[in-house]
């Protein structure tokens, strides 16, 4: 079966009875069993749940009713979740040996919302343990390989979510984004990825990493599909108190975009820089003005992030004591230990003011920069990663070098704003390179509009790697 790569094509094929949902699941599970051993993408495959959900979908289809899609916007859509989303009765490991046999007693809001909308859950996906990493190599269950070229990393920490969609093992996936963990792997795997506004999508049931930065990420092949996911996932759930209901932003008829001059730093790869210039030209050709803006505190994003994030990590991972569930603290991997200790350090007596308080103040300055920029432009064009995908093992011995991968992505988390990653082109080594569009808080629907416009202009066609 030639698997459709969009939600609409999948649902049309189901409505036209080209195949049944059960047969669709057969095909996806077949792809998983063919390639998962090699690429290490799924940690748990939930075929029983998938088939029972598929049978429900087939039943709905049998009583043919046009309202099926209206009431179930994701009906028949295969989905897989990063293994930090709690799934009741289905193992959730966070990519860590601490939780290697943990079966949660409840499910995350986002999981429940996708499945209520008709999605068919295929399983749980590999990731850097506790979502700590930018390559997938920090998983305690081994690295995931990039489906476009298995010598390269798929990005992280949502390595499995990106690799699963890129390899045709699932149509959509859920990741998380605390400092780029959805956008960077989407970028390395030629996918659309969304980091929503902080407070748009409830995080209840997502294992917490850094609570003032954590967001639920979505990955798919097209902007249309990301928009459908976003509208299913967003809004208050009564559990995550930072979430707020909001109306779809009015779509602008005239856009103005900005590129920060501070983005062109030493370390930015030539091919990535050229791609950003090409993106600018595409928008200009479409009649959209693109201007140079300034985000003067750009160089402090990573230092601020690597104080605030570990501080919150050390607190959130403090609860894992092996008493109520899971193994004890000796089971933490190296990167989790480093981040917990770094966090304890910046919060400890004598250092709090110099590091943590200072970082919270510089965070305010970063937010101010963005507020100022969004008075002038509707969205900002930015690289996602300074380089195309790198080789497995290339950055593992030097944690600081790996942290610098986050130079373009952490700002959206620190400022709480949405950012949409879009596939753009391939490097000379045939590896994906994309860019991101950052907008003001709750401007997601305008970012979607800009994303669709770009993909229309470059005649983008979704494809899988294997």
């Amino acid at each position, binding site marked *: 079966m030639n698997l459709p790569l969009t939600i609409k094509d999948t649902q049309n094929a189901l409505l036209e009875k080209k195949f049944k949902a059960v047969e669709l699941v057969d095909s996806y599970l077949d792809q998983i069993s063919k390639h998962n051993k090699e690429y290490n993408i799924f940690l748990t495959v939930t075929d029983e749940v998938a088939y029972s959900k598929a049978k429900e979908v087939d039943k709905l289809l049998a009583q043919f009713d046009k309202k099926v899609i209206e009431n179930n916007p994701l009906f028949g859509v295969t989905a897989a979740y990063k293994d930090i989303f709690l799934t009741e009765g289905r193992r959730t490991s966070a990519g860590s040996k601490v939780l290697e046999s943990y*079966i949660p*007693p*409840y499910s995350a809001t986002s999981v429940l919302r996708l499945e209520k909308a008709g999605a068919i859950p295929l399983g749980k996906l590999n990731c850097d343990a506790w979502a700590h990493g930018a390559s997938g190599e920090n998983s305690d269950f081994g690295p995931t390989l990039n489906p476009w070229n298995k010598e390269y990393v798929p990005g992280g920490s949502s390595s499995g979510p990106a690799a699963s969609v890129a390899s045709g093992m699932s149509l959509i996936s859920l990741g998380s984004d605390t400092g780029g963990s959805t956008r960077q792997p989407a970028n390395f795997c030629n996918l659309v990825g969304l980091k929503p506004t*902080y*407070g748009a999508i409830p995080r209840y049931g997502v294992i917490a990493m850094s609570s*003032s930065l954590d967001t639920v990420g979505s990955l798919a092949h097209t902007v249309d599909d990301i928009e459908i996911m976003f509208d299913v996932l967003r809004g208050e759930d*009564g*559990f995550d*108190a*930072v979430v*707020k209901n909001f109306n779809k932003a009015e779509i602008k008829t005239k856009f103005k975009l900005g590129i920060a001059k501070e983005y062109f730093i030493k370390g930015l790869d030539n091919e990535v820089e050229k791609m950003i210039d090409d993106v600018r030209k595409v928008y200009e050709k479409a009649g959209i003005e693109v201007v140079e803006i300034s985000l003067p*505190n750009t160089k*402090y994003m*990573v*230092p*601020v992030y*690597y*104080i605030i994030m570990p501080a919150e990590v*050390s607190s959130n991972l*403090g609860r894992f*004591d092996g*008493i*109520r*569930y*899971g193994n004890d*603290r*000796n089971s*933490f991997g*190296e990167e989790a*230990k*480093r981040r*917990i*200790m*770094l*966090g*304890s*350090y*910046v919060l*400890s007596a*004598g*250092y709090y003011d*110099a*590091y943590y*308080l*200072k*970082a*919270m*103040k*510089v*965070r*305010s*300055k970063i*937010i101010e920069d963005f507020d100022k920029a969004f008075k002038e432009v509707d969205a900002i064009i930015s690289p996602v990663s300074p380089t195309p995908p790198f080789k497995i093992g290339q950055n593992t011995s*030097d*944690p*600081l070098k790996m*942290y610098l991968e986050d130079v373009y992505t952490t700002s959206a988390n620190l*400022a*709480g704003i949405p950012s949409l990653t879009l596939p753009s082109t391939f490097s000379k080594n045939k590896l994906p390179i994309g860019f991101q569009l950052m907008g003001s*808080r709750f401007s997601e629907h305008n970012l979607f509009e800009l994303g669709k416009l770009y993909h229309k202009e470059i005649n983008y066609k979704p494809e899988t790697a294997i």
Partner: protein
Amino acid sequence: MPMVKHSLKTPEAKRSKIVNNIKTKLTREDVLHVAKLSSLTLTDAEIKKFLPQLSRVVEYISQLSEVETQEVKPTSQTTGLVNIFREDQIKALNILPQDKALSGTDIIHNGLFKVPAILEGRINK
């Protein structure tokens, strides 16, 4: 690998200091101290590996000291929301039943979690 027994007191004198907002190099005692604060037990090999790695990161994040922040208020969250309350009502859907709450461990006693003793002198009396 041999586990290092941390003494309860980390010698303060051997830990690094902040002088004029500039961090002096991280020491082995710093690493032992934060490991203790973090309830982590490190092997000798880990201490050897983590010391230079953490040192480099601390040196890197210390560059923030050059930013002028005298007049700036700290940001701890970005929602703009304040004091979100809910009704003080118990909803069955919002709580885990006892058996589910206990489902993650076998070490239970009369429907309660059994935990290691934290006070000395009362064991087996």
